[in-house]
């Protein structure tokens, strides 16, 4: 029941954004500042989700070189900067994380 609400609500939230301009087909123009603001949205929101996950994986802030979530994230950032390929970044980041957690027992 709750999942029905969740999925229905997410459908409305997703589809309305995708459809509204198609429905009106060019009769509306955004002010340029709003267009610019929208460009910030994806990375800003994604990092707001990632930052707590990797800096407080056990519920409390853990800023330490011994935190494998943070260390593996750093590896992923470097990989993404060097290779510019999403799949490589994911695989290398996961391998680094697995190595630290299960190889080194961090």
């Amino acid at each position, binding site marked *: 029941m709750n999942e029905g609400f969740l999925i229905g*609500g997410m459908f409305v*939230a997703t589809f309305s954004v995708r459809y509204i301009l198609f429905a009106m*087909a060019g009769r509306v123009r955004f002010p340029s500042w709003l267009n610019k*603001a929208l460009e910030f949205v994806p990375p800003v929101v994604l990092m707001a989700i990632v930052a707590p996950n990797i800096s407080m994986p056990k519920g409390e802030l853990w800023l330490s070189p011994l935190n494998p979530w943070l260390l*593996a994230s750093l590896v992923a950032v470097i990989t993404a900067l060097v290779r510019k390929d999403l799949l490589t970044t994911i695989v290398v980041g996961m391998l680094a994380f697995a190595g630290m957690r299960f190889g080194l027992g961090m």
Partner: protein
Amino acid sequence: MSDSTASSQLLVEPTRAREFLNGASATFPLLVGAAPFGIIFGTLAEPNGLSALGAILMSVIVFAGASQFIALGLLAAGASIPIIIATTFIVNFRHILYSANLVAKVKHLPQYWRVIMAFGLTDETFAAVNNRYLQTDNLSRAHWFYLGSFLAMYSNWILCTYIGLTLGNIFPQMQNWGLDFAMSVTFIGMVIPYLKSRPMIVAVLVSASLAVVSYDLPHKLGLLMASFSGICVGLSLLMLKNRQPVSKERKQ
């Protein structure tokens, strides 16, 4: 491949089926990139509190990769449903930019085509279709290209969700393998290409640090607050940066 496309454009207008197949094949490399997300989404669904049926239905009905991941993350963290829906809305707001870009290409189409195309508007299909529009101005059957790209993405996404659910059931201890980190590392990989200007970098840093500081706010409100603050700071920096050359010109 490019030879045959070029010659068919010269000789006759491509048929609907040809456009459809071109759309699907132009999207193929993007499927390979999207598949892991679908699989990871499927494996993460049940450990994060979404039923198998809910996961499949979400992929069929919502069809928005990043939002589905975020919904799982928020479900696991105990966020309320309205917060998850509001977050979905914000995360998907970038699609406004895509649709704004495509408006001129759909104006001549009946509403039912626009509904289908809007539902299928993903980052990948936008990228593939945008290339098609850049290559040729002929719009009369371009929506069949779009449909081919959309259905390739859509079927791939649903299939991968199912594969992920199955893998998660075969290996129930998968949730201890650090797949939760897969979500973080996926998002990191998605964010890095955006970090090309100082306003964007500062916006992301502001958002990330505020999200950590405000993590204990109820209903994950910290996430929205942090995002909004990051966007405001980034936009302000961008406007200050863009203003400088203008004022210099005026002095000259």
